[in-house]
């Protein structure tokens, strides 16, 4: 069920009606969120709900144990019943062929009980071991469903280099939608409890609703438990102002997705599917098309997620803040996919040592974090190359101390502005080059793309007309957003600008939206 589908509008309308009716009963509202979220996620493939349930129960139990609390019999029973009943419901439509899933869950429960007993009996530092279990289960799910085939193929290729011939193990599995997002979200819950930043929840319902919260379940933002989970325990105010601003934020996201991203997608696809036959100008145009396609696709989704959550009385963190106005790579990562970059900073970069050690160690930590961040996006060498490239430019800018210079330069408005424009332009070109690694199917395509651009270099292309047709309004909108320092242009601006921007967005959605419902790029990550 995509945000840009008719089914979602029906689903959300019906859901909101029930949600509003139960506005004075928090637990009923939370139950509705859980059921609604499972219906929403199950619309892709109901069997994958089992993975969410496993992740939820694991972190619920480990969270309590990490904080040093003993599990009551009632809590254990509740968790077990939730897991078994949830699994049964999830496999019901395909019961005969999915019976093995139930078997696997029962085995998992046995192993889990054994592990819990062993940890309690044989180890001294329970907290660390439970954190280890939580990370193993979540990364295990991610590893099996996302990376098995990639690592297996890479191992075979590596062995071939030395003349050893290995048989590749290939798992015939589909990547469960949003697995990278919710596993990272639940991991942050356990880690934050371990670090003493938050207390665990005793309520399985709220925990399950937090993990499966449908607005941000499949493509983020990757929320922090310390920010989102407490909102499930507070009475939520469903006021007109939140509803209206949420609705316009949703419409703004929908505009970016269906009008810009979906119309630029065929142009980028055409260029990337056959780069050898394209002129230098076509390749550049295709790359620019993808640059804005991925931005509008992903930030559009984030806006829709934040908008729909706000309509339900929730506050979800900002994920994009005009990233193409960044002057340096570090600024870019404070503006692009903020929830992931801050996650990587807090749970990977800082534990690796951050910038506390030698300069070399800082650069190593930066590069390693970015490479793993690249790998998070997908199981392909192109993503690793993209991560390495991001790490490289971060290190380069650090070497040149550009961020330090920006903070210490004397105040001179006109010169500063000109310097900013120059830095933004350079950074934009670097970002665009990065997207080439990200979008290409293989490193061979990257090579042929680059040779195509620089061989007989030219800018002109017939594709620019269509690209600029969709991009020009966005550029104008973003310039206004940047100038006014206001991201919610359809809600928080002067009423004349607001009315015209709203009408423009609505008319664009009605008359210029690409036909058909196209999936979001980040659903594959």
């Amino acid at each position, binding site marked *: 069920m995509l945000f840009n589908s008719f089914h979602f509008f029906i689903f959300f309308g019906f859901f909101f009606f029930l949600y509003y009716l139960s506005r004075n009963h928090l637990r009923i509202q939370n139950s509705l969120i859980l059921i609604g979220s499972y219906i929403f996620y199950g619309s892709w493939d109901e069997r994958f709900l089992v993975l969410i349930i496993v992740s939820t129960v694991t972190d619920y139990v480990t969270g309590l144990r990490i904080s040093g609390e003993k599990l009551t019999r009632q809590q254990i029973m509740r968790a077990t019943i939730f897991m078994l009943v949830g699994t049964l419901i999830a496999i019901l439509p395909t019961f005969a062929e999915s019976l093995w899933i139930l078997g696997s869950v029962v085995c998992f429960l046995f192993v889990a009980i054994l592990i819990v007993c062993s940890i309690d009996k044989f180890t001294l530092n329970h907290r660390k071991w439970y954190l280890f279990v939580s990370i193993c289960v979540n990364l295990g799910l991610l590893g099996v469903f996302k990376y098995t085939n990639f690592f297996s193929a890479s191992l075979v290729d590596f062995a071939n280099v030395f003349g050893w011939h290995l048989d590749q193990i290939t798992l015939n599995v589909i990547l469960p939608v949003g697995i990278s997002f919710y596993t990272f979200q639940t991991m942050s819950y356990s880690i934050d409890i371990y670090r003493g930043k938050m207390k665990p929840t005793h309520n399985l319902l709220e925990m399950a609703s937090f993990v499966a919260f449908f607005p941000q379940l499949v493509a983020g933002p990757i929320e922090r438990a310390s920010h989102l989970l407490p909102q499930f325990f507070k009475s939520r105010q469903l006021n007109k102002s939140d509803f209206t601003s949420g609705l316009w934020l949703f419409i703004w996201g929908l505009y970016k997705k269906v009008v810009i991203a979906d119309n630029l997608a065929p142009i980028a696809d055409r260029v990337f599917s056959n780069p050898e036959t394209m002129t230098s100008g076509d390749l550049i145009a295709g790359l620019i098309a993808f640059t804005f396609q991925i931005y509008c696709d992903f930030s559009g989704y984030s806006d829709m997620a934040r908008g729909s959550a706000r309509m339900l009385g929730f506050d979800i963190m900002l994920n994009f803040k005009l990233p193409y106005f960044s002057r340096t790579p570090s600024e870019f990562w404070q503006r692009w996919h903020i929830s992931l970059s801050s996650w990587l900073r807090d749970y990977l970069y800082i534990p690796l040592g951050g910038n506390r050690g030698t300069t070399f160690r800082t650069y190593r930590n930066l590069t390693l974090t970015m490479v793993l961040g690249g790998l998070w996006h997908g199981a392909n060498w192109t993503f690793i190359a993209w991560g390495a490239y991001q790490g490289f430019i971060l290190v380069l800018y650090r070497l040149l101390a550009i961020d330090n210079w920006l903070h210490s330069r004397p105040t001179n408005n006109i010169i500063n502005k000109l310097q900013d424009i120059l830095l933004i332009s350079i950074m934009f070109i670097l970002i665009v080059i990065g997207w080439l690694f990200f979008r290409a199917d293989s490193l061979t395509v990257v090579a042929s793309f680059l040779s195509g651009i620089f061989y007989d270099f030219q800018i002109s292309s017939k594709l620019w007309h269509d690209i600029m*047709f969709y991009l020009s309004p966005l550029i104008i909108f973003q310039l206004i957003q940047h100038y006014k320092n206001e991201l919610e242009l359809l809600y928080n601006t002067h009423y004349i600008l607001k*009315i*015209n921007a709203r*009408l*423009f967005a609505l*008319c*664009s959605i009605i*008359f*210029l939206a690409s036909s058909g419902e196209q999936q979001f790029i980040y659903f594959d990550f």
Partner: protein
Amino acid sequence: MSTFKKTILIISLIFYSLIFAEYFVRIFSPEKIMPRYVTSAPYGIRGNIPNSTYWHTTPDTRAHMRINSAGIRSDKEYSYTKKPRQCRIVIFGDSFFMGYEVSLEDSFAYLLENELNIRGYPCEVINLAVSGFGTAEMLVALQEEGKKYQPDLVIFQWHESDLDENIRSNLYSLNKDTLVRKNNKYLPGIKTRDWLMQFSVYRFIIENSQLYSALRESAATKIKRFLAKNTSNSQSRTPPHSDNIVDATHSTKPLVPYNIKLAVKLLLSAKNYSSSINAKFMVVDVPVKWKNQEMYSSLSKLPKDIGSDLSIVTPINKFKQLESNNNLLYYENGAGHWNVLGNKIVADQVTSTLINSDWLNSFYAMPQ
């Protein structure tokens, strides 16, 4: 704020939004303006509004539509009784035969008459085409109105969209392979349209507003899809993947989908009816051309042996040859009808088929 002020504000906002949307469509998504001036004909189906004149405007072209007192796109009036030694050709079709997007002088019917007259065959072509017609409505129009013109030749247009139109209209159905009349009326949206057409504001909007045109097109497409799906679902008319289904009783014979069976029966029924009123019957194929896709003949949707039962003229080869030489035959930015060249090629093709046939020569050789 007082209620009065609020009302004024809301009305102003609605008015401003409409103006904004109209200009938005004109600038960013120019839409063709092709009002349909149709009403109910006395025999239960749609007909052109008699004596109406209006414009069709698309990004490609602008055409003036003039309808005579009998609902025919023509500047002439026709009497039911024909002149002696005059061959009368009555044509039935949808917007292609009606000459949408081209002027009267560039329409197929006009060009056909002109070509035949130039070549010494004083034929008269009467165009009973109405936009939106399928084969079922053409058959009703032939039986109820066309026969009154005493035709010597009846020409039916064949377009692949007729397969759906015939199902949607529900005028005929098949009962054990026999064609039966199911409903006496098929007047989709005509009551509302007739009521709205009384208002000059509405007529102004349909002839000038691209916003209205865009919204109507979008709604019509969705409703048509819904109706076609519903009708075919409720009556199991088009079995899914029908090409792959084999008739269980005759295992070697592929099962023909219902909509194709119905269309064939309707065409054969029109042929038989034409014979019964001493008229020859001919079918003209309208090749299908979607933007950026290869052109194909609408006949490809019919059984291959249909040509042995019906006299069919298809311009597909000529069209493909011209297209390969970069000639445009359809308006690509408008509603996708034949352009001037397209109409001319079809008229030429039908003219040469008729001139080369024994039938037309014997018609004029025969003492009348």
